[in-house]
């Protein structure tokens, strides 16, 4: 891969990838590391033909693999040290909507609640939700990224949405 191609990938997919990393990892430092490692792995191992087919999916696949590996290592480490995962909060800004001030406020609260609840989901639900809604990957692409059958992805998405809907209802937000 040439320098110019590498730069164009950062330019084009940097924001999407970074948002994904921030959603996966609550500490900004960890998100930065995952973001960096994903691009460097792309550079090191990326086969041009595979990348060109669907660069974004390819990047997301790398990020998911690195994330999973890191989780495995962390699990071991935290067993040894009895430590806790970072709980650094990441601040979000909510995009504005054409609505009254009150509706906007409710919407903002709903979005914040969704993000908090997505964070709490187990990875088997969280990863498909983020890849589908945040990264706009198709079921087929998510199936390739996560190496799970499409039926499983659909099922996990459905279940995740049910969990989130329940949380909204519990907090008196009917959907």
């Amino acid at each position, binding site marked *: 891969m040439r*320098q110019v191609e590498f730069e164009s990938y950062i330019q084009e997919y940097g*924001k999407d990838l970074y948002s994904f990393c921030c*959603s996966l990892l609550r500490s900004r430092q960890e998100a930065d590391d995952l973001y960096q490692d994903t691009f460097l792995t792309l550079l*090191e191992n990326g086969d041009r033909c595979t990348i060109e087919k669907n660069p974004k999916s390819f990047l997301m696949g790398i990020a998911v693999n690195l994330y999973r590996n890191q989780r495995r290592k962390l699990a071991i480490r935290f067993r040894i*040290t009895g430590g806790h995962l970072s709980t650094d909060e990441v601040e979000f800004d909510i995009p504005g909507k054409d609505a009254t001030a009150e509706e906007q406020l409710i919407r903002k609260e709903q979005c914040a609640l969704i993000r908090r609840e997505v964070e709490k989901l187990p990875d088997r639900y969280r990863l498909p939700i983020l890849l589908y809604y945040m990264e706009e990957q198709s079921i087929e692409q998510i199936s390739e990224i996560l190496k799970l059958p499409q039926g499983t992805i659909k099922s996990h998405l459905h279940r995740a949405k049910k969990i989130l*809907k329940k949380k909204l209802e519990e907090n008196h937000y009917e959907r």
Partner: protein
Amino acid sequence: MNDKMDELLKEALAPMDEPSELLNHRVLRKGKESLNMKKKTKRKISAAAVAASCILALSGGTAIAAYRYLTPHDLAVEQEDKGLEKIFASENAIEINESQEIAGYRITLLGIASGDEVTKVVSTLVSGEEMKEIKDYSYTMIAIERADGTPIRDTEEFPSEGAGIPELDIGFFVQGVESVDFNVFHNGQSAMGLLKDGVEYQMIAMDNVEMFADRDIYLRVTTDTTDAVEHDIRYAYDYDTKTGKITRNPDYWGINALFRLPIDESKADPEAAKAYLAQMEEKEANDPDIEKREKKGAKAVKKWMKKITPDNLEKYATPIKSSKKTKKVDVDDIIRFYSIKMQYAEFEIQIPVTALFPDRKPGLAQKFIYYYDVCWENEEDDRILLFVCTLDKEDTVTYMLYQVKD
């Protein structure tokens, strides 16, 4: 529920986080480095102390008891690599056995050979056990040990986070080439490491340097104390613009070994060398402005490195009291500070405790780590920072940043 829920999910989860300019700059820089060298020859080693400068000599060097070490051929046999065995048994193989003691470590260049025998080199650097078949490279073998004789411990003994050893970065320099901070040959393809009897051995395979045999060729071994090795290289070595000679900077805070390689002059290939350098220069011409400023800044920094000592620190630099932090020295005798925030950048430092505190004597560090802090918005606001440590009797290190006065 689906339409509304889908809409809400899309809105709530829309990508909103943007990587900072600094982060992208770091990724680009590391990517560029990776492209230049394909695979860096980095391997962690443990370490200690600053100080004892060494004399660079082609033959003889510091007298050492070479029998204590494995030979390159031994290492090839040990690793069951027939290709390497053949290369190091051939006429091309040169045994050197020259040692340099720096920062509490003894670095010994054991030998070098070039050849096109296909050889397997186990890279323990990137993915742990990646096996590569390579050929037509220059293979260099070095040994690293603690100067005080304490054996280097296997990092497997330290399962906790942060345990390990400082990183060394290895590359070639060529006389008369300042391009890319005179770091022309940083093209380590792979490396093989072996820890035996408390000595760390590294076999590094890099692009064949014989094309430059009509000039001085150097092998450098440098600590990578910050997260960008270029930063260390700029400060660790001096380049003489008149003669093109490269020397160690005695004021540098870490390991900066430099060996001149005895390569047969008849093997030079000026045409190939010219083409290789043209390629490097083209890459360098496309450097972002900020990197050019960092390089320029490094020259200014070196002047201060000679001037500022623990005794006159307060005269030339102002402490930034809010930057003060304290940490225990890690189990492997390394000082590690992560996320050191400056006005315009953020970086991390890993350095052997004895590099800054010879004999681990409490008090102010004998050497300072310098950083040229680039202001993204305004070049006039660039500044020189010093990373100043003090050690107490409980092995706790406190650091504070100092800004050099205008």
